[in-house]
């Protein structure tokens, strides 16, 4: 499984370009896009439901400060940076429930900042 984490400037450029052309937050790929927005001390989604074998693009950003996104069972991590959209493309290759969490210490509440990725057949 290959993952691609774009450099923030490339991501930002692409993001602005895509927005400018279409006005919708579509990614330059046909994989479904899931947006995930971090703020102290939660993401806007507690659960992300995916299908095994179906590629997906996560678009990760933050509203307040730097957070992290870590999904260790798929060896994925990214920074969640205010004003920047970080994109991770990946294809879940196993079913089950997998935790994701913030891995950049962000204050009193950091330890509970996370959610679950659910991968179904």
């Amino acid at each position, binding site marked *: 499984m290959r993952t691609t984490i774009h450099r923030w400037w490339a991501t930002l450029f692409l993001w602005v370009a895509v927005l400018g052309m279409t006005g919708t937050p579509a990614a330059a790929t046909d994989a479904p896009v899931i947006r995930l927005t971090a703020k102290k001390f939660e993401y806007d989604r507690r659960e992300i439901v995916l299908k095994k074998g179906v590629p997906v693009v996560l678009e990760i950003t933050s509203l307040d400060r730097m957070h992290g996104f870590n999904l260790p069972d798929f060896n994925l991590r990214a920074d969640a940076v205010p004003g920047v959209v970080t994109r991770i493309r990946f294809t879940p290759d196993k079913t089950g429930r997998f*935790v994701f969490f913030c891995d950049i*210490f962000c204050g009193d509440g*950091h330890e509970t900042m996370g959610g679950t990725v659910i991968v179904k057949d």
Partner: protein
Amino acid sequence: MDHKIDRRDFLKLAGLGGAVFASGLSGWAQAAKSAGAQEFYFVQLSDTHWGFKGPKANPDAANTLKKAVAAVNSLERKPDFVVFTGDLTHTTDDPKIRRARMAEFRDIVSALNVKDVRFMPGEHDASLDRGEAYQEFFGKLNYTFDHQGVHFIALDNVSDPKAALGEAQLAWLKQDLDQKRKDAPIVVLTHRPLFALYPQWDWATRDGAVAIDLLLPHKNVTVFYGHIHQEHHHMTGHIAHHAAKSLIFPLPPAGSVPKRGPVPWDANAPYKGMGFRAVEADAEKAGYRIDERPVVKG
């Protein structure tokens, strides 16, 4: 004392396999220091989280640290030194409150009747300001010292909020290790586990494997750390890693519950799962005997 064990035999065993002897024996610390000057003992306290408020986890949070200090002061034998392995204070966004908590912590532990007290940061102390306040109160984030033939290395895997040691510190570690014989007794002190104990709960250090690789050529390395609020023992190759209990609330074993959160306070067994440890060291054999101690005598 009733409890007779052959201390020397134990130390032999510990030196061979990094075996751990966590006992409720109370007599060992009273044993007079033997003639071998290479034996000593130190106390590890961890995760005191001064400033934490959470009555369900610890309704006695305002007194726990003071009780731990009293417990150390009442040890039968005075330790050579005491080390706090991080999360001295509970985190706050307010730099003034952070410093106030550090000042209170320093005040309380100044009642320890041990002269040599060493501090280390945890992410709660140091991650939000990269260790700025911590250094004002407690000095360097990473350092080395030698005691009775054992080389101690305190590593900082918390002042970088990404929970990494970082290239500069790894280079510093390499340089330090390069000066040591391969069989020199080495103790590493750190806050977070250097190995990937349970990445799903972020119980790891991002570049901890690099540090372990640097340590592996050394035959006699033992790691004492905190962060996970429970006793835990693990080997990476010949290196033993020993996590200490917390002095604010215990956490459940890795993966035993869906969400990592404090084990609730048990009114029938106050301070259950909390405590500190005494470590008896034999530099010659690089053996360590660990004695887990309660906050209050049961």
